[in-house]
């Protein structure tokens, strides 16, 4: 009789699973993005394959978007959300330019991107972003994000389906000493621009071997004092 009213403490209830939805608003179009910051340059790269499931949709789709004179955004994930995010940032940047009579700096854009992502905390942009550019002093900067806007400035980063393959390689080649070690080392790498571009090409070629979503070509954007330059390197198409 007491059983009716007292909650049973020994019995464990099976965890209820959320019913599998019949339709998802998201899709993963795959791809990988990488960025490396240098003393006076920044290299941002992304492959150009857009896939869905096990199929390839486009072999030459650009995941890279230049938002300001000095900031370039590379994003992998759901390309429809990414396009909407890019347009959103463009519009916000236009407003900023009207109000302040100048372009946004890279750190300012980094914060704006974080806020824009968090704004949709409860229906996120399925975008894994890497923002690269030059800061106010002309030094390279790289910011990497999660889907809801958590971000951090670092010397290098990668996101996307090939991230797990590329990040360890970058760590091996570029990792600066721990911040606990004094004297403090800057968060930029000692590579030259040419070496950095070469490293990026190597990492993509390697990632394309094992990651089925990465391949076709890698688009590399280099920002330095002179401006913005583009390179395109073919990758394996399988």
């Amino acid at each position, binding site marked *: 009789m007491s059983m009716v009213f007292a909650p049973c403490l020994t019995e464990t209830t099976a965890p209820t699973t959320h019913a599998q939805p019949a339709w998802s608003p998201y899709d993963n179009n795959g791809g990988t993005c990488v960025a490396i910051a240098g003393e006076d340059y920044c290299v941002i790269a992304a492959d150009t394959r857009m896939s869905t499931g096990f199929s390839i949709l486009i072999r030459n789709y650009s995941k890279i978007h230049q938002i300001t004179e000095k900031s370039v955004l590379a994003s992998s994930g759901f390309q429809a959300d990414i396009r909407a995010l890019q*347009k959103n940032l*463009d*519009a916000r940047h*236009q*407003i900023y330019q*009207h109000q302040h009579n100048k372009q946004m700096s890279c750190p300012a854009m980094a914060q704006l991107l974080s806020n824009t992502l968090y704004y949709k905390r409860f229906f996120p942009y399925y975008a894994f972003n890497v923002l690269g550019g030059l800061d106010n002093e002309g030094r390279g900067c790289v910011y990497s994000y999660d889907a809801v806007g958590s971000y951090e400035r670092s010397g290098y980063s990668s996101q996307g389906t090939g991230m797990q393959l590329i990040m360890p390689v970058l760590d091996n080649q570029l990792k600066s000493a721990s911040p606990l070690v004094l004297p403090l080392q800057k968060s930029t790498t000692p590579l030259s621009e040419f070496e950095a571009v070469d490293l990026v090409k190597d990492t993509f070629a390697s990632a394309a071997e094992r990651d089925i979503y990465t391949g076709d070509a890698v688009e590399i954007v280099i920002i330095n004092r002179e401006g913005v330059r583009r390179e395109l390197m073919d990758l394996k198409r399988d």
Partner: protein
Amino acid sequence: MFRNQYDTDVTTWSPAGRLHQVEYAMEAVKQGSAAIGLRSKTHVVLATVNKASSELSAHQKKLFKIDNHIGIAMAGLTADGRVLSRYMRSECINHHFVFESPLPVGRLVVQVADKAQVCTQRSWKRPYGVGLLVAGLDETGPHLYQNCPSGNYSEYQAFAIGSRSQAAKTYLERKFETFMECTKEELIRHALFAVKESLQEEELSSGNCGVAVVGIDEPFVVLDPKTLQSYIESLETGKEEQQTMEETGTDDRQSLQVQHEGTGSRGISVGAGDDSPTDMET
């Protein structure tokens, strides 16, 4: 304009069928310092007379970029103009977001006009006290429009609004037929001449005027003081060249004589062959 008993409210008609408040708003535009616009087949130029409220203060901003292909010059209550320009910028950005193409100038002008009209039919609002000259480029070419506080708008080849704009308009009326074929530099010079007419006594300098240009493949830009000053200086040299040309020109003697009478007090020897410029007093 005399005060009468039908002008308290914008929503009260006068027996003569007028809305006095709207007309008073247009007066505010006429009191503001002049703004001039003119266009050619490829460019539109806006010029403003910049008045500083005192020697200590900076000049008021009267030229605003709305989008890469549209800009405005305003006359009247510049605060109202700033609010309208914020609205126009927002409309351009939203249009571009949805359609990924620039908002056609004419459409924007109509939207502003409709916004202005609302203020003429609400008892808790007042009309905007600013007149806008909207310069823009779209698929159909370069355009110049005027927006009134009344909610009216019209397209122009060249126009001037604000105080002493009549002087500028007279100059424009004289010259407007040549505008279509003008180059950008010639158009800017015409604009500066028009501003000069409005300034009357004052010397034209980069401190008391502003110029902005928009053209095919050229985004709207307000000229910086240095560039502006060089254009102003070219006006002087241009004028001298013009006058010496008139005197020693290859035209026949008859027309030369007529022109000399026009230019007034200059010592000129007429008749004896081609006189070199050094013989003239310049």
